[in-house]
């Protein structure tokens, strides 16, 4: 991903503040921003625009289990496009417990109807972890356990997206209490992939950046398939790099300038938060490049002065103490770093040539002299002979 990636995203984000409605122009911007978020090449926005305009809006079924609705809340605050535009123009959100008007049996009926009508075509989005202990009795919707409901909905889905850290691997609910003998969370909270027994696309984060979800949805819309994912199911376009790599405080890290406690001089000066326990160096996410909350640049946890807690990273977020120092990951040496052996020193062609010339001349001169001396030797030998 190049500089344009950051620039364009930034530009779009900066203009969002003045935007109330999406007109044609801004719609193209949405497409372009989505294309760049996805890391697609120039021209891809046209394909996206075409796909969004022409294609039938895909049906989306959104399930909620052990969660705080933070992921939905985060999505509600997306402004390019706003969620209502997403719901009306881009996708057809047929079931979403917090957003839908329907309730009770009506709601469940709508879900069943959507699943039937779009069999094999709808997108299933799961928010929240799934309790698995004691057959999953800890979470029920309409009398159905989360496990059953997930399996039922996933069976005919074209794609399954786990949004948020809870759905991705269990997240906060899966945290093992620090009680002796405890080896799992009280309810056995698990991620979608574990319950289904197959990999799914995950958009971890607490909450996740809404654009990572939107971009994934639009990718599916445009290309009919989900984006490339890493071994944890995370789209590579968003989770391919360590936060630390593009962190705006990185220069301070490289120069050894660290905040040592909250509110100290270094902290106020915006120094690196590594020694306060920032997990940026071991967390894969694009927070440092696209920011958070659509209020412009420098608005994400680290920029605000709080160390990253590693919420997108299983085994880091909710697991490792917030103050604990990160292990640096994926820090293979940048190309600019000196290698063990560097070629140093100058050689001079001109002087090599000069030296060769001198050596040649000297050798020639010596040979000539030796030849002359040889002649003298002969004459002397002849004289003696006489």
């Amino acid at each position, binding site marked *: 991903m190049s500089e344009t990636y950051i620039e364009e995203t930034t530009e779009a984000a900066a203009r969002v503040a003045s935007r109330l409605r999406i007109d044609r122009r801004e719609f193209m911007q949405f497409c372009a921003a989505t294309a760049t978020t996805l890391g697609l090449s120039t021209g891809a926005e046209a394909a996206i625009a075409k796909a969004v305009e022409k294609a039938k809006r895909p049906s989306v079924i959104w399930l909620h289990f052990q969660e705080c609705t933070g992921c939905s809340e985060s999505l509600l605050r997306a402004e390019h496009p706003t969620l209502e535009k997403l719901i009306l123009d881009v996708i057809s959100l047929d079931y979403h417990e917090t957003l839908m008007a329907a309730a009770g049996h009506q709601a469940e009926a709508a879900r069943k109807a959507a699943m039937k009508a779009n069999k094999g075509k709808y997108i299933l989005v799961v928010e929240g972890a799934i309790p698995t202990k004691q057959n999953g009795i800890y979470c029920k919707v309409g009398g159905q356990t989360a496990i059953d409901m997930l399996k039922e909905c996933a069976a005919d889905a074209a794609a399954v997206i786990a949004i948020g850290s809870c759905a991705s691997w269990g997240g906060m609910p899966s945290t093992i209490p620090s009680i002796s003998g405890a080896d799992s969370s009280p309810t056995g909270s698990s991620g979608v992939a574990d319950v289904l027994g197959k990999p799914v696309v995950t958009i971890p984060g607490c909450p996740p950046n809404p654009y990572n979800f939107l971009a994934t949805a639009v990718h599916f819309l445009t290309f009919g398939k989900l984006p490339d994912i890493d071994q944890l199911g995370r789209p590579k376009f968003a989770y391919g790099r360590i936060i630390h790599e593009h962190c705006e405080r990185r220069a301070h890290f490289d120069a050894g300038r660290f905040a040592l406690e909250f509110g100290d001089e270094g902290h106020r000066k915006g120094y690196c938060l590594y020694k306060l326990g920032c997990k940026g160096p071991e967390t894969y996410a694009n927070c440092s490049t696209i920011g958070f909350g659509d209020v412009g640049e420098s608005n994400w946890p680290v920029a605000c002065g709080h160390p990253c807690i590693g919420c997108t990273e299983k085994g880091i977020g909710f697991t490792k103490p917030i103050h604990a120092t990160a292990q640096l990951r994926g820090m293979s040496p940048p190309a600019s770093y000196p290698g063990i*052996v*560097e*070629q*140093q*020193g*100058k*050689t*001079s062609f*001109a*002087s*090599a040539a*000069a*030296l060769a010339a*001198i050596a040649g001349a000297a050798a020639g001169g*010596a040979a000539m*002299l*030796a*030849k*002359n*001396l*040889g002649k*003298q*030797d002969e004459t002397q030998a002849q004289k003696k002979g006489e």
Partner: protein
Amino acid sequence: MANHAHAPRPLGGSFLSPLTLLLGVLAAIAGVILVYRFIYGLGAVTNLNDGYPWGIWIAYDVVIGSALACGGYSMALLVYIFNKGQYHPLVRPALLASLFGYTLAGVSVIFDLGRWWNFWHIFWPGYAQVNSVMFEVAVCISAYIVVMWIEFSPAFLEKWGMKDVRQKLNKLLFFFIALGVLLPSMHQSSLGSLLVIFGEQIHPLWRSGMMLPVIYLVTAILLGFAVVIFEATLSSTGFKRQLETPVLTPLARIMYWTLAAYVALRVIEIVARGALGTAFAATWQAFWFWVEMACFVVPLVTLASENARRSASKLFVGAVLLMLGGFMLRVNGFLVGYMTGEGWSYFPSLAELMVTIGIIAFEILAYIYIVRNYPVLPAAQPASR
């Protein structure tokens, strides 16, 4: 004691010639480059770097320069210590060449010293560090330069007619001659000892450890003989004088056996240390080692017979090869075989080279001037050709 039929006389004649003009130009170029060097630093002129902190200004101007200037030392050793009076006519010209060689080696050290204005620290108690080989070399060379000027002073005193001083000096000369033999023995061996502290940084072919001083001393003596033959031949041809072959032939015999001893020593030392294998590796070091050895071994073959040693041409070629061999040994030890780590390269810059050439030019120029104006070369009939 030998008789001195050929007492030294000034050659006379015109100093100006195309050759001296060329030499003058070369020396002037070096002077300009040196001014530049003192204003802008070593890096502005040389290709020196931290992998090769010593370039040709040290390896050639000082280490080789002083070794090539060992003619005076070798001849003094032969004439005064081993009492071979018949070589006496060769002493003074050899001493003159040595005088210039050493003086310029001493002066060119200043060109190479980064903080040259502090050079007196070497001789100053409180700064001087006696564990350093460099200290020993510096003190010995400086002392030897002074001793040589005293040794050579009769030539000037003769010219200036200062008989009283000359007579007094003559009575003490034996002491300076003894010093003049001791000091080069010390620093020529120490120039080899300089490499000892480089340890593993020296290629095994030149990493002779405790034998380094012996190897450098023996080759310095060898080079002294070779240079005497070389200079005698050159000045005979150059100044159109009778060839000194009859004197050179027995000298060549001594040189030959010294050479034989050296080659044996060098080979045995390498084999005993188990370093011979590296000579057969496909490396530049191995290549230049064989070049070096060839320069020593070829004269060992071509000068084997007394008859060969009577031939002026064979003597000359042998002497040139020996000088080249001594040159290669030192270049190999200090530059080719010096491996401070991967990635470093050095080849002298043109400016650097021009300074070295300029110094040599200046040396020859001064030699020509002195022999034309002061009694150095033995008075002899013009060449019979």
